[in-house]
């Protein structure tokens, strides 16, 4: 039923319908009765307390983390120093183990190299293999290093003085190096 037809209907209908029409009119629904309100204060307090506790906790946690971070940095520094110290001590130890140093010290104390006949004692059978002989005196090895680079000024270029009168003469090295000896095969 469209609303445009309503006036015509009303005009045509008898009064008996009026009640129904009255009833069909929209009215405001009565407001439901409100329940008694719960007190708000405890809730707000609780939420505030939780938030405060959270913020405080976070702050404390952060502070302690920060402290730990400082401590970690300090400990890392310390570890680095100790590592460096350990390395320094190790390398000192390694220098003390230098065989050259040990050999020099041993020879200073009169020790010599074992060059006599060797013998081996088998601890299991108690048998001695080989004939034992004592070390010989004065058998040592050099403990000084071969020479360093000579500064260039110590080796000036060779000056050749040519004797004009005897210019055809060739002065050979005292070792007498000669070429052309290859038809001999002095292999041994």
């Amino acid at each position, binding site marked *: 039923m469209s609303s445009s037809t309503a006036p015509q209907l009303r005009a045509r209908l008898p009064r008996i319908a009026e009640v129904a029409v009255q009833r069909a009119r929209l009215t405001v629904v009565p407001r439901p009765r409100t329940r008694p309100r719960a007190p708000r204060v405890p809730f707000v307090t609780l939420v505030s307390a939780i938030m405060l506790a959270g913020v405080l906790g976070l702050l404390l946690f*952060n502070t302690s*983390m*920060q402290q*730990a*971070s*400082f401590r*970690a*940095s300090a400990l890392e520094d310390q570890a*680095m*120093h100790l*590592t*460096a*110290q350990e*390395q*320094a001590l*190790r*390398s000192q130890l*390694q*220098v003390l*183990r*230098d*065989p*050259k140093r040990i*050999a020099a010290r041993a020879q200073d104390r009169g020790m010599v*190299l*074992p*060059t*006599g*006949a*060797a*013998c*081996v004692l*088998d601890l299991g059978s108690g048998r001695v*293999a*080989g*004939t034992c*002989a004592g070390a010989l005196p004065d058998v040592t*090895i*050099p*403990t000084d*290093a*071969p*020479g*360093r*680079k000579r500064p260039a000024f110590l080796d000036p270029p060779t000056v050749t003085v040519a004797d004009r009168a005897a210019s055809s003469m060739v002065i050979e090295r005292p*070792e*007498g*190096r*000669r*070429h052309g*000896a*290859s*038809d*001999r*095969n*002095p*292999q*041994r």
Partner: protein
Amino acid sequence: MTGPSRLRTARTPLRASPQLRLRIGFILIAMVLSVFAARLVQLQGVDPDNYADMAAEEGTDTVLLPATRGEILDRNGEALAESIDGRMIVADPALTADDAPELASFLSKRLGIDYIRVLERLRVEGSRFQYIARQVPASLANEVVSDAADKGFVGLFTQRDPVRQYPFDQVAANLLGFLGTPRKDGSARALAGLEDAFNDYLSGVDGEARYEVGAGAQIPLGDNTVTPAVDGNDLTLTLDADLQFYTQQVLQQTVEGSQGESGIAVIMDSRTGEVLALADYPSYDASEPQEWPKSRYRSSALTDVYEPGSTQKVLTLSAVIDAGLGRPRQQYVVPPVLNRQDRPIHDHWVHGIEHLTLAGILAKSSNIGTVLAADEFAPGVLRRYLTAFGLGKETNVGPRGETKGLLPEGAAWTDQVDDRIAFGQSLSVNAVQMIAAINTIANDGVRIDPSLVEGSATLDDGTEVGTDHAEQRRVVSVEAARQTALMMERVLDPEDGVASIAQVPGYRIAGKTGTAQRVSDACGCYDGSRTASFVGFGPTDDARFTIYVVVHDSRGGGGSAVAGPAFAKLMSYALRRYGVPPTETRPSQIPVEW
């Protein structure tokens, strides 16, 4: 009427119609806005991370986590090269110039550096960065700088500068090489030897840590990324540091004693091919390489070739026996001179017609006898044997610049060359090649690739080397190798041999002398100088060590007089050091004459 009209015409261009002015205004605004838009597109579209990164960079600390370079160790784990944390001490002259003399005397005393030089550096004008000392061990550097701060000196600081140490200085320097001054970024500059050949293997990869900082400490829960450093690998060598030292010293004594020019000594484990010692003389100190000439930064045992001389006869005669062309007791008539195609062949001693056995040819080192014995070979067979012994091919033990020697090939291998090669001329070898070849006889005819690296390691060119990759191959039969060893024992016989001086009391030793004419570098011809050498192994019947001593340009005599005693010392020391008991069997008595 001209007045107002002129006025109007003069005013019109100044105050154009509002539309026009608006339009111009809009165009200007549009232009400015499009510049903004373009910049916006650039920032957000083309390069969105740049500014974000710059913002993040503020307050972010990046720390390099340096990788530690691997150590080079000997077979017993003794460090031959090690890296320690180091610092460079740097001064800011703008701050140090005022108390320069006091600070310079403090630094020179503590660091052992030159006073005048430090003083100059502390006073350089217009500079804010001067090196005071480089590669100072970290503990010392930190101590010195903090002590200086305590004394009230300002302007000193330290930076990372890793230190490479060679605690044994000269021991194995010929093989180890060294590192130069580190590059600006702190990476190593390998300049020679194994340090150079295995640079990538030893180096490792630097890591990096990035984190947010506040007040000098890391912010917890802040951004934090760590790429850990990958440390370099340790390189374990087959060398025995003590034996290496002893070998170097004995070699030094030998070369100096014979007034020789240079020398090489190699000790090899007969059973595994591991090089236990490899000495070159003259060498240098890896801790102070700048004090020695550059020509010494190498191992001439690998980089230099020479003619092996009579030690080669061992290879030739073992091949003769293996090919079934002779036996140790086989009889030969050796004439005083053997006239061959281009020139006569002589022996080192003057003799009439000699009746020598094959053992006698080796014991007395007869060139003529060796040539006669080798005459039985079909063409190309001797070369095949020598190639199988490893001559003419690099040993690839590690260090760069190894020579492969010279073994004539094809048309270059003429009959004359064949004769001379039989007794060790006209071919050239490096010392490691030669000892590996002779070791084949010690190891019952099986050649083992020599190795300098324990296990496996990768060279910079990608090749894997080391004992894990050492191959074995049979060159001569067990019987041929043992018979050759017994013949070599006759070389050391006091009556029948030429080198009783190389005997080791209590042990059976097999050996061979060599006195070769030397090709001079200057003229490329034989200049009359000689290379004296001695190679041998012991105990003969259960070989443990093969030792080779070479002295170039020796004045004190031939192989037996010069290199023999050195061989005996080294063999005696090695046998004792490794507790090898004497085998207590009788040495061979194969007759040398008939």
